[in-house]
């Protein structure tokens, strides 16, 4: 399995280069997004306050300390379950040019098709290991939509952010989905072993 170091903004070629299981490190800018701010963008039709062409988006809602007007320090930045915002993948890739979605738990088969079509990847950040992730964030450069705190849009500057595991590549593979399908296929055998028929 290969290791990649990318700088943001990402290109389509970057996103198409990686395969499931590879590890990826990012340098540059990562935007924190999640339920409330994506609902505002896509269901309430409010244009996002930042340009997401080539962006890496991270599913998060961090613990922060306010240190001045619009200025925050990170206390703990971690990653949240991606599947809750799965239905926004298409618009993010098609209309906003996002190249990488970072989150935990994976995305749907439909999102996998879209990543293949538009040239994007899903990086599986290690859920619950936020302490390690926090130290890789150099600064919270900006916070948009403070009224949604903690579900604001965060602009993080990161350095050697990783190694995160490629969960979905642009070749149509989805590792978490494959693992779960294999588990489902094995269930009959496991139930039989427990005497359940």
């Amino acid at each position: 399995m290969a290791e990649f170091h990318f700088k943001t903004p990402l290109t389509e070629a970057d996103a198409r280069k990686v395969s499931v299981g590879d590890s990826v490190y990012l340098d540059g800018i990562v935007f924190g997004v999640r339920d409330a701010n994506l609902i505002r963008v896509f269901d309430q039709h409010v244009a996002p306050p930042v340009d997401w062409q080539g962006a890496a988006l991270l599913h998060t809602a961090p613990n922060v300390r306010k240190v001045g007007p619009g200025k925050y320090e990170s206390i703990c930045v971690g990653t949240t379950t991606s599947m809750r915002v799965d239905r926004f993948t298409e618009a993010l890739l098609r209309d906003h040019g996002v190249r990488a979605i970072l989150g935990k738990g994976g995305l749907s088969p439909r999102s996998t098709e879209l990543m293949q079509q538009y040239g994007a990847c899903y990086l599986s950040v290690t859920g619950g290991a936020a302490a390690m992730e926090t130290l890789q964030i150099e600064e919270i450069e900006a916070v948009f939509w403070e009224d949604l705190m903690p579900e604001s849009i965060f602009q993080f500057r990161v350095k050697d952010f990783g190694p995160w595991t490629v969960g979905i590549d642009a070749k149509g593979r989805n590792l978490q989905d494959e693992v779960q399908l294999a588990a489902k296929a094995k269930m009959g055998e496991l139930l039989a072993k427990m005497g359940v028929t």
Partner: protein
Amino acid sequence: MEVPPTFYDLVETTCRDLYIQSLKEIPPDVVAAIKRAAERATREVERRIFSHYLKSIALGQEQNMMVCQDTGIPIYWVDIGGKLRLDGSKLDAAIVRGTERATREHPLRSSIVSPITRENRQTSTGERIPIIHYHFVPDSDVLDILFMPKGSGSENMSFMKMLVPADGVNGIKRFVLEQVVGAGAKPCPPTIVGVGIGGSSDLCMTLAKKATTRPLGTLNPDPQLAALETELCEAINQTGIGPQGLGGDTTALGVHIESAWTHITCNPVAVNLQCWRAERRRAKISAEGKVEVGF
């Protein structure tokens, strides 16, 4: 034994400290289980994930950092010694204030909102939150508070079914395995699988939650339920789901069952998953005001 007036202030600061420290120090039984699972891991991705878990556990312990960003739903299991004489409403208010102070003074992310308006008071509290379960213990003069900040990744993976008596224990086995496989990567495996059996629907789910607070390595005292715990845990660990659902040999750190008797027509089963950190922290407060902290 009548508690002094200062007792409630002590409960307040103790609850504040329980909340904050629970997010930083992972219980020793959980750390040991993660280490054992890491040593067993053979695949590259699986080993990578466990190394991130262990690094974050160490940062919590050594650098006083929060291990995960999710401050969770604050839940308290409060055992009141039967010999204690105290004002329950003052106790309740002190627990709520401690929760709010942890949020404000650390500060912590307030993860609690109105389910309809999504308003966040930025206090980690709201209508009926924190959740406080009271129980009474005979012949004790100790207030025993077990706190858990229940993260949503695993809490969203909660399942309940009113099976019928004809479904038997086999129905329970099938339900538990199906839910764990269905949850896949989402609850941040390897998990503690809490299983409630019996009771009414509400009690059954509470038992499943309570089961996740039991230290790893302990078995249900009923030998039949203990055997069921072991059997289910072995089956779950053969699913191959692994840490973060990326594949591996450890999907559950343990299966814990708690049970209650039920109605002649009922066979309720509930599953409540707890993520790999399984944060919990306990304080025992004596009537004289001595505090002993543990897990």
